[in-house]
């Protein structure tokens, strides 16, 4: 079964979607979208580092992400420049540094496009092991810190006074993010990872009444996007990673309140056959009688 590249792609995509949804919810709740984007840009630096040091690429990415996050958090405390400036600076500096580092490796031909946009249809059995193992570990760790992290997300200091070790929980959260970025790299590439983390929670919000329902719906939306994207990619020969993100975006558009209005209009009688609204001028006609 795993001999089929489509099957491998689907399993890998679903594996990433299942952890990206719940993790992405926290990124949305904590307003850390830009932070996540910065981390994923640092992934490229991890790739070139992995080739230089001859270590596993996924491991290299995870290490680079963690180091970037560490630098970011310590620079944030220094308060030298505004946080969004710092994030933008670090995101693009690490991207540039990664590209420069790659150009030095003349003997190695790295497929830059697959790094930027993913290469899910070429997932190997070995990749699958990393993705599923890393994904399961990340999901288990997230479940473990779920309540303290939620508590710290609502009110950091209240959580701390109540005995939550906020710094430790936040560090664990950043570590989980690094792992998920590393395994999602192969699926959608570093430029699109953040959309796998942000779009499914954005779709799920409208249907959720509790944090857990939102996380579950986000995971489901991610899985549907993976199915839709891969099917579309096979049918129309479009790049798989961007197709997955496009599918997720389509689900988001369909979930908007505005979409509900449009659906309603389309399903009703054509506009010119509508009688004038009786309630628009309820009094004006009666004055003339």
């Amino acid at each position: 079964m795993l001999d089929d590249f489509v099957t491998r792609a689907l399993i890998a995509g679903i594996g990433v979607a299942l952890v990206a949804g719940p993790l992405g919810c926290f990124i949305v709740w904590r307003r850390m979208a830009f932070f996540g984007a910065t981390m994923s840009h640092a992934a490229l630096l991890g790739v070139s580092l992995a080739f230089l040091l001859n270590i596993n690429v996924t491991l290299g990415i995870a290490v680079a992400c963690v180091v970037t996050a560490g630098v970011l958090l310590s620079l944030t405390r220094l308060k030298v420049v505004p946080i969004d400036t710092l994030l933008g600076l670090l995101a693009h500096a690490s991207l540039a540094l990664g590209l420069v580092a790659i150009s030095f490796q003349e003997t190695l031909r790295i497929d830059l496009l697959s790094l930027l946009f993913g290469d899910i249809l070429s997932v190997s059995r070995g990749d699958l092991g990393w993705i599923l193992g890393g994904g399961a570990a990340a999901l288990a760790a997230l479940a473990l810190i779920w309540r303290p992290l939620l508590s710290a997300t609502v009110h950091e200091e209240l959580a701390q006074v109540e005995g939550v070790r906020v710094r430790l929980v936040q560090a664990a959260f950043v570590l989980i993010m690094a792992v998920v970025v590393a395994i999602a790299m192969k699926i959608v590439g570093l430029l699109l990872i953040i959309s796998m983390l942000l779009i499914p929670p954005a779709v799920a919000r409208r249907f959720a009444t509790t944090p857990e329902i939102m996380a579950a719906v986000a995971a489901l939306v991610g899985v549907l996007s993976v199915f839709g994207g891969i099917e579309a990619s096979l049918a129309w020969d479009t790049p798989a990673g961007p197709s997955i993100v496009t599918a997720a975006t389509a689900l988001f558009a369909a979930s908007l309140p505005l979409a509900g209005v449009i659906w309603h209009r389309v399903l009703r009688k054509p506009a010119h056959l509508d009688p004038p609204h009786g309630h628009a001028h309820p009094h004006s006609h009666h004055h003339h009688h």
Partner: protein
Amino acid sequence: MNVALHHRAERHEVLVKAHGLTKHYGGQAVLDGVDLTLKRGELTTLIGPNGAGKTTLLRLLLGLEKPSAGAISAATGLRIGYVPQPMHVDESLPITVRRFLSLGGASRDAIAETLRDVGASHVLNAPLQSISGGEMRRVLLARALLRQPDLLVLDEPTAGVDLNGQAELYELIDTMRHARHCGVLMVSHDLHVVMAATDHVVCLNHHVCCSGTPDLVTEHPEYIALFGVKAAQTHAVYTHTHDHAHDVSGEVVPLAKDGS
């Protein structure tokens, strides 16, 4: 449950004793040699002008920051219930009041009961972002009470609440202090209410200007220098009389005869 606590706890047991607390930020001393003693069953109010270091002192006592110098000793096993100022919760987080209260680790029954005690049962299943400022104060108070605290610490518990709401909240805090038999420390700007309802006032302006009973503090020259002669007289003026009251949802209810 609380009855047992009454018997066990010594009436004026010292809960927290701070000595010589000093905090520097970039060479500037925000707090300078502050002494403070908090006792069970006693309501202590921290007053002082803006930037006097009230919030910093609270943060030190809560363990959120370390003092530059000085020491804090707390009774063994001291449980603190913290009532912060209302926070902004992002709209993207679907969370009800019930769920928010459960984050502190309380059971379903305890949550319903405590929310009733603070007069906010009607928001139990409401989204946290949808409740009013006054309701949020009560919910935060409930979260603190659910920890069965020995000491309640409140940061400006009525800021942004209208006058009637303020009086109601102060009454509620006072009721809870007696019912739960805990100590209370609060930061407040409502001088007139503070002077009417507090056992112990600490007037802070980087150092402790003066402290003691409201009567003593309002006659203290440093207090008058800080807040003016008018403020010194307001404590006697404060009386709250109405021929009716409002419950939390704003409905008019008859006044309770026994004044409870």
